[in-house]
């Protein structure tokens, strides 16, 4: 199986560990992956506040580049790890399919750059690919280093599931739970799996953003979790990098590591911390049950 890969801006900077660990895990599983050449910003969130139309055009250019990169007859899905990009691209795909008027405008704009969009590409999240294309069976067959005794709270965040994705249940997501469970971890049942972390606000209305993240951390800790697993660079950043500030603000002593689910998978596959960008974490991974690697 081979895929095209859209990293998005975050995976090249604050979320570098996500990219490193994902690529390592994918190659361990024998998945081929090609980065889309000369990709641009997907036009999500903040950009959309200025121009929705242009945001659609930005995403459409990515699709067009992807289609050009593949042979005319080939088809490959685009893997998008960042939840915000995943939503942005998926949204564009849906809107272009359902709104011919919009489609015509975008076609015309792409035309100015000699680009074409035919809608052949699907937008896929790594969780989707790992669960549905690779399968739990194959993944557990590569298990070297079981995550035994580690209590993991899977945190899906908001934009990964809502409103366009269809690979998991919007209300009770389970794809990440199943993956990590298969690798030996114990999954913490908590009701805030897909509650917003306030990510987009931490930079601007910081008190509100911190509060939202703090609610998540507090509840996860209360339910006895050792590590929070995330699937979005912004979630990871908020929950981890601001922890010390939250503790200061709310006079608390939360110290929960927040890792990408791909990092945890990589550990279970026995990959080296370097391959997984473990050294980039602020809060070191440590085990509740004295796990070897953690």
């Amino acid at each position, binding site marked *: 199986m081979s895929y095209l890969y859209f990293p998005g801006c975050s995976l090249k900077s604050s979320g570098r560990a996500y990219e490193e660990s994902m690529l390592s895990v994918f190659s361990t599983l024998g998945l081929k992956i090609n980065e889309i050449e000369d990709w641009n910003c997907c036009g999500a969130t903040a950009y959309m506040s200025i121009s929705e139309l242009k945001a659609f055009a930005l995403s459409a250019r990515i699709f067009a580049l992807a289609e050009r990169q593949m042979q005319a007859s080939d088809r490959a899905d685009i893997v998008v790890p960042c939840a915000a990009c995943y939503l942005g691209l998926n949204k564009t795909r849906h809107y272009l399919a359902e709104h011919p008027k919009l489609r015509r405008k975008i076609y015309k704009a792409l035309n100015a750059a000699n680009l074409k969009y035919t809608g052949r590409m699907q937008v896929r999240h790594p969780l989707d690919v790992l669960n549905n294309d690779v399968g739990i069976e194959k993944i557990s067959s590569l298990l070297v280093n079981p995550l035994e005794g580690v209590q993991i709270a899977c945190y899906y965040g908001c934009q990964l599931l809502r409103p366009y994705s269809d690979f998991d*249940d919007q*209300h*009770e997501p389970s794809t990440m739970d199943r993956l990590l469970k298969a690798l030996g971890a114990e999954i913490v049942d*908590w*009701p*805030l799996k897909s509650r917003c972390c306030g990510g987009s606000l931490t930079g601007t209305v910081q008190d509100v953003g911190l509060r939202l993240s703090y*609610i998540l951390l507090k*509840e996860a800790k209360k339910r006895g979790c050792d590590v929070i697993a995330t699937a979005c660079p912004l979630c990871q950043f908020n929950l981890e990098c601001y922890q010390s500030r939250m503790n200061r603000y709310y006079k608390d002593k939360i110290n929960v590591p927040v890792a990408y689910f791909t990092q945890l998978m990589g550990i279970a596959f026995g990959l080296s911390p370097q391959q997984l960008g473990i050294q980039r974490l602020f809060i070191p991974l440590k085990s509740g049950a004295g796990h070897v690697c953690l």
Partner: protein
Amino acid sequence: MSTVGTGSNDKCKIGVYVCHCGINISSKVDVSKTVRFAAKLPHVTVSREYKFMCADPGQDLIQQDIRDGRINRAVVASCSPLMHEPTFRNTMAEAGGNPFLFQMANIREHVSWVTLDNTAATEKAMSLISAAVERVVFHQPLMPNRVPVHPDVLVVGGGIAGIHAALTLADAGQKVYLVEREPSIGGHMAKFDKTFPTLDCSACILTPKMSAVRAHSNITLWSYSEVIGVDGFVGNFKVRVRRKPRYIIEERCVGCLDCIEACIYKSGKVPDEFNEGLVKRKPVYIPFPQATPLVAVIDAKTCIGIRTGKCKMTCIDACERDAIDLNQSEEINEIEVGAIILATGFKTFNAKRIYRYGYGKYSNIYTSLELERMVNAAGPTGGEITLKNGQKPKAVGIVHCVGSRDNKTNKYCSKVCCMYSLKLAHLIKERTGAEVYNFYIDMRTPGKGYEEFYDRLLEENVHFIRGRVAEITDWVMTPEEEGKLVIRAEDTLVGVVRRVPVDMVVLSVGLEPQPDAEDVGRLFNISCTREGWFLERHPKLAPVSTFTDGIFLAGACQGPKDIPDSVAQAGAAAAEALALIDRGYVVLEPNTAYVQDELCSGCKTCIDLCPYGAISFDDEKDTAKVNGALCKGCGTCVASCPSGSLQQYLFTDDQIFSEIKGVILYA
């Protein structure tokens, strides 16, 4: 036979009458223009317009024109022929014309109500009128067929609606078959504790009616039975009913419970359907103490005696009347009836479909129907409202509109939930003294004494929070929420979000069509709405009739209804059935197929096409022949006749060809 238009030498004189239908038509269609247009069409001698053609003065216009010899054929451009064709045919006949020298142009349902643009609507109306004019030229004078009506009636479904309809008909002297799928009649009403707004005991008012059904000499009650086949037509239905084996000989059983006592299972094994699965029952059981018929039933799926044969069969020994027969098999009964009343009821919404409400995930979340059983003195807790831990709840939240008014589940309002939620709120308050919070979107209490009941609840200090519940979780934020279920909703009247910790949640689930409503609809040849409710003939003027003559609807199978509405509709359905039987005959549309004898080559193409066996081969004449009494008028054989020798009254080739021409040629 009338004198109009019978002879071919009679000049064809057509009157065209365009209806305004108040402003229903005239607001879109330029009526005067269509009238002027129609006046110029061939053979049209009179062209008029009127505000309401179906009203007496409108009909008088036609009759006067016939009597004065101005016209001998008529075209009325108004609503759908499914609505008023019979009306205008009568008009024709009363004035001495032949009712079938008439054609309708549907310029309301097919034009004014569906077209945005006035010019386009007017053009479309004109083309439909010209088609009708072209067609009516080819109409022949016909006589309607009369067929006698069988006096018996079938009622399907033994809930309150079915019971009431059956009793009404039986009291009027009609023989009634009441078929119920479950082992006992009673339906949902038998499960309720009290009824709103009067707080009558549900069982107290229902049980006498159930006994009356059992005792009535005119009623044949077949419980644990299903209709599996329906043939025929209004006045003459042939119905097949499957009587499922209950493994108890009904005539012998007296409902003594000895077999149940004797069952080798010492306690219940299977979720008790009547108690909404709150407790368990044995494989041999009587659904509830007032069950009618009061006869035990053995559930073949769970009885080991039936399943494996390896059982001591202590029940058989225990029965002194030898009523148990584990080898019983199903029976198929065939009956003939003149009319059918469908009262197949509803089911409640499956609350698990709304994941955010935690039903099935957290304990102490109940559906309203489960709570009905819990509140009932004869229910599993003896009427005690308790939590799983045995304690009384201190705070209870009642969540309205669960599975109603939601595009993702059901768009419609289930109509009864507000009132039953108020009733439950009252009962909870009365029995436990708990704080009761009602979360509602809109409080809908239109009904006699309903608003007063709402007032009473307001005075009882029940909390009302106007807001649809967003989520119910065990995620707590404050110490007082600890160990409770937290209901989160916006209090929209205040404009703040509230988190209300409660011990128990009641989900006021909406009403849905029976899961097999589509199949039942197909069986009886009636339609369902998009949601799956049975479709009535007209939402206002024919609310219990269906598009299949002789089949009537009663109760919640047609849409959500409370008890008084169901009973009223059941009465109406019974009255419609009685009117049909009392008349003694039905008039059939004379749209049967006929063979132009001397022209048939006897090629037999049509012979086996007729599902009703109305066509046979006449060995003497070597031609096909149609039995008009059996023909239902579909015209399939007519279209198949290779030499055009079969024709259909009211739908001859000439009539349709001219309609095609008319619809395209003009306007």
